[in-house]
C-alpha cells in the first residue's frame, strides 16, 4: 500500500504555484532544515484578496504536496478566508497524511499565515509580536526552539546534543 494518497502524489508530482514573487506584499518562512522541512510563502495582495501566491519548499513529498495544496486553497481568497486554512483542513483536502508526517511536514498553513501577518504588519494592521507562535500547534508561545504545550522541536534539540 502506498504511503501517500493519490491527491498527495498528484500535488507532489505536479506542484502548483512553485516559485517566488518579485516585490511580494508578504513573505512567510517556517521550519528549518534540521527537522527536514522548510517552506517560504510569497503573497501578492490586491483589494484585500490574495491575488498571487508562490512558494518554495525544502522537504519530503508531504511537505511539497502540502505547500502546493495550501497555495491552491488560498488563491484568490480574502485575507480572512485564507487565515482560516488550518493544517487539519489541508490534510483533509489532501485525502489524509501519514501520521508521522502530520506535525513535521504540515507547515504550509503556518507559512501562509506568516506571509499574511508580514503583509498586515507592513500595512500597520497588526502589532509586532502577534505573528510569533508555535508553527506546530495553536499556542501563542514565543519562538523558542521548543514549544512548551506541544513539545514540538524537542527531538531536534536532543539531536544537537
Amino acid at each position, binding site marked *: 500500500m502506498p504511503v501517500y494518497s493519490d491527491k498527495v502524489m498528484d500535488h507532489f508530482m505536479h506542484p502548483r504555484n512553485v516559485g517566488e514573487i518579485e516585490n511580494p506584499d508578504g513573505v512567510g518562512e517556517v521550519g528549518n532544515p534540521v527537522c527536514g522541512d522548510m517552506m517560504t510563502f510569497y503573497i501578492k495582495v490586491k483589494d484585500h484578496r490574495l491575488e498571487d501566491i508562490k512558494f518554495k519548499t525544502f522537504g519530503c513529498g508531504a511537505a511539497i504536496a502540502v505547500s502546493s495544496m495550501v497555495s491552491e486553497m488560498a488563491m484568490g481568497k480574502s485575507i480572512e478566508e485564507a487565515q482560516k486554512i488550518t493544517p487539519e483542513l489541508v490534510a483533509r483536502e489532501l485525502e489524509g497524511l501519514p501520521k508521522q508526517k502530520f506535525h*513535521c511536514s504540515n507547515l504550509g498553513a503556518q507559512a501562509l499565515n506568516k506571509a499574511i501577518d508580514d503583509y498586515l504588519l507592513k500595512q500597520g494592521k497588526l502589532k509586532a509580536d502577534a505573528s510569533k507562535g508555535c508553527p506546530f500547534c495553536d499556542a501563542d508561545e514565543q519562538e523558542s526552539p521548543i514549544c512548551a504545550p506541544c513539545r514540538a522541536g524537542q*527531538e531536534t534539540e536532543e539531536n544537537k546534543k
Partner: protein
Amino acid sequence: MRKVYLDHAANNPLLPEVREAMLPYLEDVFGNPSSLHDWGDPAREAVEKARERIANLIGAADPEEIIFTANGTESNNFAIKGLALAQQNKGKHIIISAIEHFSVMNSARTLEKMGFDLTLVPVDKFGVVNPEDVRKSIRPDTILVSIMHANGEVGTIEPIQAIAQITRERKVVFHTDAVATCGVIPVNIKELGVDALSLAGNQFYGPKGSGALWVRRGVRIIPLLDGGIQEGGRRAGTEDVPAIVGMGKAAEIAAKEITVRMQKMIPLRDQLLTQLPATVGHVVVTGHLLNRLPGLASFCVEFIEGESMLMLLNSQGIAVSSGSSCTSRALKASHVLIAMGLSHEIAQGSILFTLGLENETSDIEYVLEAMPSIVDRLRQMSPLYSKFIKAGKGGQ
C-alpha cells in the same frame, strides 16, 4: 517503464536455487527438528547442514558455535544483551561506535537504563573508528566492545582486526555486527579476531527471517528467549526450518561466488561514485572512498531532501533509500551522517544506492540519466538553493 532496483541493503531477492532448496521444507518435510521420529529427522538434518554452511562461510571450525536467529536485529540484540548480562559480575561498561545499527545502539541504550555504562567511540569524517579511541575507552570494568564490520548506510569498512588486537590484550569480549558484510565480502572470524559476530541471510540472497549469531566456544551468553533446548539451549523456540535451509543454501553459493560478485559490482559502484557528483554538482560522497562495501554508493545531494528524491526516482522506476529525517519513522536525520560531522542540512539530502547481482552498467546509466533533472526540479523548488544562488556563491 524500466525498473531498476538499487535498494539491496533493504532486501535482496531470493536466488532461484535458494527458493528450490527451501520448498521441500514448506511442503513435505514439515516435522519439528526436535522430534525423535521419521518426521523430525530430515528437518534436523537440514538445520545441521545449514549450520555447517554458515560456519564455513565465516571460517568457523565448529558449527555448534552458530546460533540461528530470526534476523540481524535479533542477532545484535542477543549479542549485546546476552554477552553483557553474562559478564555483569565482572563489570558494567560497554563500548560501541557512534554509527552502529539501531539494533546494537538501542540494545546498548536498554542496558544503560538497566544500570550499565555506555561509551560511544566517535568516527572520523569517512565514518572510520580509530582503534586507539577504543583502547582509550577501555576501563577495568569494560566487559564488551561492539563495532560493526561495515556500515550499511555509508559503506565504510571498519578496522576490526586492529580493534580485536586491543580487545584481546585487554581481555574484553569483542562483538562485530557483520550483517552488511557476511556473504558480501570475505568474512573470516579467525582473521578478524572477534569473539562474536552477527549475520543475516537476506543480505546475501537468502530469505527474510533468517539470521545467525556466531559466539566463540567458551564465551558465555545469556539467552534472550527462554524455553526449550533448541540451539544448545541458547535460543529456545521451534526453528524456522525453511528460512534456515534457505540461508544455508545462500551461504554455500555466496562462499563460492563472493569474489566474482565483488568484481562485478565494484565497477558499477565506482561508476556511480565518480559520475554522479560530476553530472549533478554539489554532491558529497559519504563514507570511505576505498575501504567500502563493493555494492554501496552513498551521497548527500545539497539543497534538497532525500525522500522527495527517492519518490521522484521511484516515479521513474528506480528504487533507492535515504537517511533523511523524513524517510525515518523517528523523523531524525541519520545518526551515522551526523556522527561523521555532516550538518543536518546536508544530511537531509542523503541518498543511498545499493547494488545487486542483477544490476548492469545500463542500469547505472539509466540512473545517471534520470538524476540531473530530478535534482534540478527539486532545487528549483528549494528555498535553500535560491538563498545559495542569491548569496552569489555561484551556480553549478
